[in-house]
């Protein structure tokens, strides 16, 4: 049933995939992110973050507070590239 349990709605990553990666030794959020794109969609990890960290904590016996989420970078929501380019041009003038 784990394949139908969705952990990351943005990139459609299932609990099965997350558990398989953890079993292979990928026990940080960042590693799993690079392999599956979790945390890189519109929600920026707000759906999957704690679920994935909880899975890692359960599998490794470490506590949630010892585990690291990914580095948070701007922007927090999608921004069209032309808007960013236009603002950069305005600041050059």
């Amino acid at each position, binding site marked *: 049933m784990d394949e139908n*349990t969705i952990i990351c709605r943005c990139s459609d990553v299932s609990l099965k995939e997350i558990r398989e990666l953890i079993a292979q030794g990928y026990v940080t959020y960042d590693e799993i992110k690079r392999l599956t794109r979790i945390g890189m969609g519109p929600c920026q990890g*707000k759906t999957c973050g704690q*679920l994935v960290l909880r899975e890692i904590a359960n599998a490794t016996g470490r506590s949630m507070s010892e585990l690291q*989420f990914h580095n948070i*970078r701007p922007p*927090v929501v999608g921004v069209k590239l032309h*808007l960013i380019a236009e603002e950069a041009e305005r600041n050059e003038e």
Partner: protein
Amino acid sequence: MRELELLIIGSGPAGLCAAISAAASGARVLILERSFAPGGQLIKQTHMFFGSERQYASHRGVDIAGILLKKLEEYGDRVELMCNATAVGFYEDNVVTVLKDEKEYFKIKAKSVICATGAYEKSLAFPNNDLPGIYGAGAVQTLMNVYGVKPGDRVLMVGAGNIGVIVSYQLLQAGVEVAAVLDAAPKIGAYLVHASKLARMGAPILCSHTVKEAIGTDCLEAAVVCRVDERFQPVPGTEQRFDVDVMCISVGLSPLNELLAMRGVEMKYVPQLSGSVPLRTENCETCIPGIYVAGDASGIEEASSAMAEGYLAGLCAAAALGHVPEDYEARRQEYLRQLEGLRSGPVGERIRAGMKLSAL
């Protein structure tokens, strides 16, 4: 690039009170609100709040937003409120980038910033949890109370905390049948007043129960729930099926503070505060001078403490900018006393423990 004195991100209870407090001291304030209307979660709270008179007990949340906005008007052009404006980035030199109406993008530089960005809903992992018809309870409350949209005909509520129970009651008021309210915990988390209202309407509250799976092809058709033991493990043979077209997930909130994290504010995972929170002083200032946090963004509590924290953060941020009212210390002590009162007793035990862990 626009430069300003004090930027407040978020116009929920914390942000509005911070703005009132800072403007009363003489600071010039810009408030950014990502939604089309100010008030944050207050605008969808149709139930009466209780607690202390200072935090507008026995008013409906939606009316409290109105009261606060009216107060804010007293300060005239010292306060500017910008709606449909999302703060999308927060950089080292205190530059905040803003996306407005999804078609304007610009920079603002503020001497001081109060982050009052609130919280987001936690999700839950179970088979078929991505079927249409499965929502966060807060999302359903927004649909009903802000947009006037009925989410479905028969709902299963997962979570019997205050939000789960209050939203269940409001669903009943909207003519939606509540099949059951579940909670994995052995006891109802919500205040008894709210839970009994729901029980009187005939909605069953099942403690020590969780959702085992959702069923449906194109959208939610049913849900299977089961009992859990004291270690929250499913008990085989206790499955029950509910035919529902809506499921609401109400398993808690997490502080929304990614802007502070990207600014380089020191953060810490504090389970008692429901997630990663910024370390902060008694005055709500983070490890970076001039950057403050108030409300759920610094740990999940209630609207009442968000308001008191907002007043405190606004007062202290304005004072640090040189706007020190004569009664500064008396007011500061008063807000600290209010917060201590709101966090007192057995109910506040978790919060007090969390505050200790996030104290600077």
